[in-house]
């Protein structure tokens, strides 16, 4: 059976791994390659690297570290950040990434999703969605440029309409990041993710809010997501990936233990 995936996310800024709280106040975590290697050895199923400065600063992610990661890592990894064209994506894939994740540029030009999936196959194309629950309007909304506080803004899309749209255009996987939960470690938004699951026919990855091992159990059981992404709990060694996977296996979640 297909296993549920545990996916550490490494936010990259200026070539180093950082982590902020609710996308703000980034603190330095460490070097990319040793962290990536540690996660692979602990049993991570996949890694995601977000160059959080890239879209906001109008530049492509520095590529040299993609090759350095690919040289040492024997699990799949995905690179996100500033990929705006077929050329950008081709470069990242040539350097050894397995997938590219597109967020703000897809909102600026949705046809980019069609072009990328036609050229590289849907399996390479991940769409990242930053979703914020607007309490006043009681609506889930898509935000863009979330890497830069001064440019972060709501888009015209509701989260669920955008999820439908990106699938039509050729998304091979969706990472739904719930901004209200990001970095606060109170658990995944299983309500929103369950709603997303009903309309999402490609793999769906939960992001934002992991704090304790039972949060992973809940999001797999309640929202039936295909993978759960987390950052700070792994960086700060609050949760050990191997222990997490043993725990989930005990909870009868289909999981790859090493």
């Amino acid at each position, binding site marked *: 059976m297909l*296993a549920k995936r545990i996916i550490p996310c490494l936010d990259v800024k200026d070539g180093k791994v950082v982590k902020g709280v609710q996308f703000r106040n980034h603190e330095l975590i460490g070097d990319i390659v040793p962290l990536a290697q540690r996660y692979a050895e602990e049993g991570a199923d996949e890694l995601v690297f977000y160059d959080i400065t890239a879209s906001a600063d109008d530049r492509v992610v520095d590529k040299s570290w993609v090759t350095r990661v*690919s040289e040492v890592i024997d699990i*799949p990894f995905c690179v996100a950040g500033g990929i705006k064209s077929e050329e950008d994506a081709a470069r990242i*894939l*040539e350097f050894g990434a397995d997938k590219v994740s597109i967020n703000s540029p897809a909102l600026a030009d949705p046809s980019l999703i069609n072009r990328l999936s036609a050229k590289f196959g849907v399996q*390479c194309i991940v769409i990242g969605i930053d979703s914020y629950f607007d309490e006043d309007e009681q609506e889930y909304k898509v935000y863009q440029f979330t890497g830069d506080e001064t440019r972060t803004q709501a888009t015209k899309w509701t989260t669920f309409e955008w999820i439908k749209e990106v699938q039509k255009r050729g998304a*091979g996987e969706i990472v739904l990041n719930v901004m209200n939960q990001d970095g606060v470690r109170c658990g995944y938004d299983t309500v929103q993710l369950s709603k997303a699951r009903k309309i999402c*026919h490609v793999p769906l990855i939960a992001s934002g809010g992991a704090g304790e091992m039972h949060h992973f159990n809940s999001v797999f059981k309640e929202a039936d997501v295909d993978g759960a992404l987390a950052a700070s709990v792994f960086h700060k060694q609050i949760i050990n990936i191997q222990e997490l996977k043993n725990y989930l296996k005990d909870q009868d979640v289909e999981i790859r233990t090493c």
Partner: protein
Amino acid sequence: MANAKTGIVIIDTGCANLSSVKFAIERLGYQVSVSKDKNVLTSATKLFLPGVGTAQEAMQNLADRELIELVKSLTQPVLGICLGMQLLAEFSSEGNVATLGIIPGTIDPMSAENVRLPHMGWNTITANDGHPLFKDIPDNSYFYFVHSYALTVGSDTIATSVHGQPFTAAVNRDNFYGVQFHPERSSAAGQQLIKNFLEM
């Protein structure tokens, strides 16, 4: 005498993402080159046929490089990976394109009923007892898959997996081997499989 750790060649299919296969081979201490040169390919000791993208694009790239007949005539061990495995079959309904025809069967869309596509992630396989490609790989090991099309289980199937329904996870006919998963991204089990192929 040729050094057994040289002469390994990745066939340059023109697809992106050849480097992850290259790095995986290098991690095992082997030298490997990427080539579309006919002399290099025919004199290789082991060949890898990787592939990411669509069957149509990959076959077009092989045709442009005049490599179709050459690949079919290879007598050394060849390992097709993912799309590279699918190219070994007769026909792919992804783009309705004739493929190499080395292994009987066609590549068809996976059943989408109650399963999510692409089939993406780690899945277990069941390999034929004692097949050398799966030497020292425990039963029910997980491998990393990413695909939406698959080869139906047939007489050349040497390992199966299930996503909605059973499909060919690995195949072998004569000197041609193929794996639907990505051994270069399948952690220890994948590394063992590549090692087994290189040591054949």
